[in-house]
Structure formats: C-alpha cells, structure tokens
C-alpha cells in the first residue's frame, strides 16, 4: 500500500524550509505586508524558488527542474501553510506547472523551474477538478474577456488562459489588466484578469491540462491545510498551558482538553489523508479517489482547527494583531478552493458507486 510516512530526505527538506520561514516569515511581518500594496513576499519567493530550487520540484531534470515528486511538494506546502506564507507556490509550482506538464511545454516549464518566472492558471480558485471553467474569447487571433477569482495573478509573470476554441494560451502578464480585489484570504489574494485583445501563444489543449492541474492542486492543498491545522492546534495548546484564569492554566479544564484532544484526532487523520493523496499523485495509483477523500476531509478539519484556535484564545484571538485570523481566513477560503468538501463527496459518489437517489 501507499507509503504514508516521511522519508529522511523529506524531513531534511522540511527542516530547511522551516528554517527559512522562521527567519523570514514571522507572523507580524505577514500581517504588516498584507496591508501594503504588495501582499506577496517576492524576496521570500526568490529564496524558496531560486536559491533552494523548490519551484521546479515537479519539473523533470532535463527541463531544468528537480525531478522530484508530489511527496516533496506536499512537505513544502505543509510548511508554507504552517507559516501562512504569502508566496505563489501552489499557483506557480503546482497548478501552472501541472498544466504545462500536461501540454508538454518545455520552454515555459524551464522558466518556471528557475522561479524567475511565476505562472498562474487563469481559472477561478473555487473551481473543482472536472467542473466547467470560464474561458476567454478568441477573436481574430487575440483574446478577450474577463476572468474572475484568479489566485496570485498579481504576482504572476505569465497567465495560462483557457479559451473558447479549446486551447490553453500563455499570455504575458503585462498584456492583460489585473485588478486586485479585496479577498477573504489576505495571504492568497485574488484578482480579476481582463483581456482586451491580448496576444497569447497556444501551449496545448485546455481541458486535460486544467483537469490535471486542479486535481493536483486539490490533492496537495490538503498538505497545506494540514500545515494550517497543525499550527492552529500547536499554538492553541501552547497558549492554553500558559494562560491562567481562576488561578489555573486554562488548558487544565477538562471541557477544553477534550476539544483539543478531539482536534488532535482530526489532525492525525488529516496527516494520513494528505500523505495518501501526495503519494497517490506521485505514483498515479488510485489518484482520483484518494485526492477526493483527502479534499473532502481536509478543509473541514482546517476550518474547525482555526475556529477552535480563535475561540480558545478568547479576546486576543479576535484582534487584528494576533495572527490566528490569517489562518482562519486561509482555512475558510481554502474550503472553497479547488472544490468544496461537498463537491469532492459528490465526485466520490460516482467514483465509488454510492450514487445519489
């Protein structure tokens, strides 16, 4: 069966990413940054993607990547989730990369692998794998239209745009208008992409590329959600050991202990489900069911963990100053990303033959 553990190399990778984030992605800095004009931390991205070479994990070595697998990407995402790092890693190193791998576009993949070019798929963040997508119109060889809810578009150098002729087009970011919108998740901001006769290069067929990209995204998002949930649990346990009321640490009250133990159980389950999804994507075995199971389970756990974290922190959890809101917003927005838990359960109804009435 599936290998659900972390290898020594994966643990070493985790340690390296965690060190970098500890030094360069403190919660206070993230809070300050999300209110600035540049919510993405592109210096952090350069360290992750360029110096550490993590943008090209999924890209074969002969195209300039690392030739690693979804298992390693999942470990990176766990750590990025744990730090709610505002970097376009999922958008570029997973979603855009998987779409280009489906199209076999070596040139763009080579650029994405270096991290110097950031890619984003111009499909709304809420779209589930296999669901219909909004497309741009092709008229006289150029692209027109308005595509909403595109994650990390403002950080991107290249947008991959599905068009009504069935093609997927690579469009330079400066050839379109990107309008940031106020987003629920401050650390994964959305934008509207407007194309007024933009020139694009057709890189392949949109449908299979988008499906593959969104499936990988849904499966690997579970690992990011694991990082978010694990932070929420760990931080809440730490706080409740310190916080005293009624002359006792609050964490000694049984009503709260049971809630945290329950949450721990959910996080343990999420870790197993997320590892199973990463491994299934890496091996290509039983992928559809395993990804759907992971994503049907992951988002509710991350939301529950961050909601509990807020409540159990009491008043301080409700302040802008405390980072728990960044995690709550990431978790709640994440529960809509790449298909809701309900959408993945509906997919399972078909996949495992438990059909609706």
């Amino acid at each position, binding site marked *: 069966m599936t290998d659900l553990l972390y290898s020594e190399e994966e643990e070493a990778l985790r340690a390296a990413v965690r060190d970098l984030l500890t030094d360069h992605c403190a919660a206070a800095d993230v809070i300050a940054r999300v209110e600035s004009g540049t919510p993405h931390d592109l210096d952090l991205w350069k360290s992750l993607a360029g110096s550490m070479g993590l943008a090209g994990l999924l890209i074969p070595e002969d195209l300039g990547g690392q030739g690693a697998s979804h298992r390693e990407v999942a470990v990176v995402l766990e750590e990025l989730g744990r730090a709610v790092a505002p970097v376009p890693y999922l958008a570029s190193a997973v979603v855009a990369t998987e779409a280009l791998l489906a199209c076999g576009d070596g040139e763009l993949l080579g650029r994405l692998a270096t991290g110097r070019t950031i890619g984003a798929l111009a499909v709304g963040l809420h779209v589930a794998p296999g669901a219909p997508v909004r497309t741009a119109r092709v008229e006289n060889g150029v692209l027109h239209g308005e595509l909403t809810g595109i994650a990390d578009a403002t950080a991107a150098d290249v947008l991959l745009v599905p068009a009504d002729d069935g093609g997927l087009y690579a469009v330079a970011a400066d050839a379109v208008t990107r309008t940031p919108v106020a987003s629920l998740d401050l650390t994964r901001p959305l934008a509207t992409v407007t194309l007024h006769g933009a020139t694009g290069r057709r890189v392949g067929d949109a449908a299979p590329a988008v499906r593959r990209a969104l499936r990988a995204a849904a499966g690997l998002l579970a690992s990011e959600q694991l990082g978010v949930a694990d932070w929420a649990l760990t931080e809440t346990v730490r706080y409740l050991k310190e916080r005293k009321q009624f002359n006792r640490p609050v964490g000694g009250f*049984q009503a709260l202990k049971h809630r945290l133990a329950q949450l721990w159980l959910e996080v343990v*389950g999420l870790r197993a489900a997320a590892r199973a999804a990463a491994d299934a994507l890496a091996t290509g075995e039983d992928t559809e069911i395993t990804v759907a199971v992971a994503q049907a389970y992951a988002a509710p756990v991350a939301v529950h963990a961050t909601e509990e974290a807020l409540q159990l922190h009491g008043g301080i959890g409700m302040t802008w100053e405390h980072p728990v809101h960044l995690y709550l917003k990431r978790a709640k927005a994440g529960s809509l990303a790449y298909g809701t838990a309900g959408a993945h359960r509906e997919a399972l109804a078909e996949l495992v033959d*438990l059909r609706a009435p």
Partner: protein
Amino acid sequence: MSHTDELIGRTREFLAAHPPEQTDRLDFLRARFDAGLAWVHYPKGLGGLGAPRSLQAAVDAELAAAGAPDNDPRRIGIGLGMAAPTILEYGTEEQKRRFLRPLWTGEEVWCQLFSEPGAGSDLAALGTRAVRDGDAWVVDGQKVWTSSAHLARWAILIARTDPDLPKHQGITYFVCDMTDPGVEVRPLRQITGEAEFNEVFLTGVRIPDTRRLGEVGEGWRVAQTTLMNERVSIGGMRLPREGGMIGPVARTWRERPEARTHDLHQRLLRLWVEAEVARFTGERLRQQLAAGQPGPEGSGMKLAFARLNQEISGLEVELRGEEGLLYDDWTMRRPELVDFTGRDAGYRYLRAKGNSIEGGTSEVLLNIVAERVLGLPAEPRTDKDVAWKDLSR
C-alpha cells in the same frame, strides 16, 4: 543471511519435522511453542527466539501456507493480548514456565478480573479485598464485565491488599484459579439480548502467594502493562477499503436504490470518507511501528473507531427503512466470539454503543490524549493522597 531468511528456514525445518496433516493439532501447537515459533519476540524457552516482533508475520504466513493449524487467537485474545505480556514482564521464572505454554496453545483460557460495579473509569478505587493468611491470600469481592469467565481456567485479578494506603498504592496483582469453589460466574445480559460478559463473585477464594504477579502493593503499575496492551489490540486491525462497519452499509446502498434519500446520501458519503481516513490513519500507524518510529497516534485509534462504528451502524438502521424497525433475535445467548460487524443492523447499532465504554471510555481516552500527547495539565485531584478507606463512595 537476514533475520527473516533465517526464521523462514527454521519454520520450514519445523514443518518438515511436524507435517501438519500428520500431526495432532495440540501436539503441533505445543511443538511450535517449544521451537520458539509461537511469538518470536518472546525469549527462548518461552515460545520465542528473542527476535524482532515484526518478523512474526513472515512465520505465520509460512505456517498458514503449509496448512498448519493455528491457536484460534480470537478465542484466547485476553490471554494472548493482556495476560501474557503481563506475565512476561512481571512473572517469576516458575510462573512463566507454568502459564505461558498452555495459554498460547489455548489449552487454558484466561479472563480479566479488573472492573467492579464501583470501579469503572476510576479502576484504582476498586474494593475487592485480598487479606494475607499464612502463605496464601483470601479474596472477597465482586467483578464485572468479564468476558470468557465461564470458559476460563485462570484470571488476572487486581485486589486491594492495604486499605490504609492511597488507592493506587494498596493494590496487588494475582493469578486467580477460576475453578476455586469460591468463584461464582453469572452471565451479564446486555442490551443486545445476549451475554458476552459475566459478573464474577469472589467469596473466600484462596490464592497461594506463589500466584502473585509483581510485589505486594505494586498491582497498579503491573495493571498498566495489561491495559496498554488491551488498547493496542482494540484499535489495531488492518482493513481493506470498505473492510469495516462501512462495508455492509455501502453494499445495502448499492443493492437498494429504493431506500435512498438525499439526507442519508449526504451522511453516508461523509461517513465513507471518515472511514477511509481512519483506515489510512491505522495504516500509517502500522507503517510507523514497522519502521521503528511508534508515534502517539495509537491512543486515538480506538476513539476514532468507536465514534465511526456508532454513527455508521446508526445510519444503517435508518437506511433499512421498515426493516430497521425489526431485530433479528433477542434470545439470551452466550456467544464465544464477538463480531462487531456480524448479525443485523440493529444488533450492530446496539453492540457498537459499547465501543466507547469497553477498554477505557472515550472520555477517559480524551483525557489521556490531552495529558500524555498534548501535555496539558491534569485536573486538580482530591483522591491521590487520601487513604482508600477514607474515600467517599
């Protein structure tokens, strides 16, 4: 040569010397024990070879492939899973030699005399008394929820030997002879209609001091070994997809389109996902153990399965519609084996209610996770430093 190859070699030699089809079942099992192939991680001379526990599976597979009889482990689970590890850790050499072989072959069935009507979650408050009388102890009290008591030759027993000490300190652990005339076993009928368990009344039962396990007053620590092994065995089975309680419900759903409703569909899919995640969690735990990295996740498996089994079996009763109003059989019986996924939906629903009580209630297990895994502080206690006889009850 690897450990595994060496063990497979030994197993083949053993099979050649004791061909299963020409050997009496009990002779075969006794010989297997004497060859050290019963539980390879036990010491030599006590059914093992001092080998890593993970190698047992290879031996079992080799024996099964040759059509060898097994010791029917489900029938003697309490002996194998709880009494044996405790005897191994705390028994004298003489006790190990006397008890382990017939325990493993199944010639002697074991039961566990721990819980009492007044000592459930607070097991350390138990009141069954053992009073020293020369070279023996005289035991009086009542035990409850004892499976296999009516079949058992021996019991592991904890009893209070010093009521003047705080409750955890005055307990001693014994091996009790279930054929003693002072032992009375009565079936305890449960909500399913049958009696898997018993009440055991102990009246003037004489236990020689040579059947004490561990030191006088050390019984609570000895019992921890027993209880840890109980929880491992409850949460630890390996399952294929839809291998647990979810399997029969999924089959019913597929076979009976007319029973489907939107509400049941939503609940079924949620539980299917949770059952699959629990299966991954169990598999991950096993992989950690095999890799020599045991994690704290084991503490959670019983909690997860208890809740899932209850919700799934509850859903199944509803899915059966009009049939859900029926029950297969209320006859009072004494089943020798219990199958949580056996019989009808109604039985499964009722039996699963015990899953969050037996072997540690879910509430106590949540405390254990909170304190031992998450390191949260214990509740303030008023019972720890008070003599047992002065506790309120």
